[in-house]
């Protein structure tokens, strides 16, 4: 997975595409940690292009959420497809993570500070 993060109104959007699994989870985690090291604190993970996630992929999302909780940052998971949503739900992630239907909605929530 080649991750090209974008900035929108001070929010860092991380698009995830294809599959987030054991073979590329480390790459995704590294990309996030790099942005965090650059001082980014507000993230939207864009799942709309992600077809599949496994527990190795969930691990990256949980690492990000824990790091941002510790630094008083914020992240929203947006645009989850069917398989990704079901895996989030099986794992109890839908209740501990902030979710949005679309990236636009997530960015608006961030801007409103709500």
């Amino acid at each position: 997975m080649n991750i090209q993060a974008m900035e929108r109104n001070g929010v860092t959007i991380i698009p995830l595409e294809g599959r987030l699994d054991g073979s590329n989870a480390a790459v995704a985690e590294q990309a996030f940690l790099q942005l965090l090291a650059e001082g980014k604190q507000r993230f939207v993970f864009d799942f709309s292009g992600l077809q599949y996630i496994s527990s190795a992929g969930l691990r990256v999302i949980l690492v990000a959420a824990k790091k941002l909780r510790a630094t008083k940052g914020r992240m929203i998971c947006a645009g989850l497809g069917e398989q990704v949503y079901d895996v989030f739900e099986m794992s109890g992630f839908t209740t501990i993570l902030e979710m949005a239907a679309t990236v636009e909605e997530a960015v608006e929530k961030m801007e409103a500070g709500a």
Partner: protein
Amino acid sequence: MSNDWQYPIDREIKLFNRMDELRRLNEGLEEIGAEVGWPQRAVLDLSLACEELVVNIVNHGFPDGGEHRIFVAIQASPSSVEVKIEDGGIPFNPLDEADPLALLDMELEDRPIGGLGIFFVKRLMDDIHYEYAGGLNRFRMRKQFGAGKQGQQLAEGT
């Protein structure tokens, strides 16, 4: 009823104990799914169950390192699949792991990283079985696709 009829596709995917082999595993499953006509979602669920088991073997099966084989045998029909996964790593029964139910309700701060993989396998697959025999970890699982729908049609048809 002969096994040939029940499972028109009988194939083995041989993997090495490396994470980058997940791509080949997935390609193999997609190929079988396309040939036999599984819905895309069934392929994804099967891919998840297989990945979690293979990742477990890659991470824990061979603590001394080195290159080893993991054998994934797939018997497929349009409405069902049976998967057998075998490896010669240290004996490990993934079904001994307790379900992480307590973990699911934990707050973000307290939640441990990991512990979900085998839980997914149990949730997604049926008729799961493990044994250690002949120096091999042997894991078997089955899945019937769309069984609920067929049952409904039967009920409506009578």
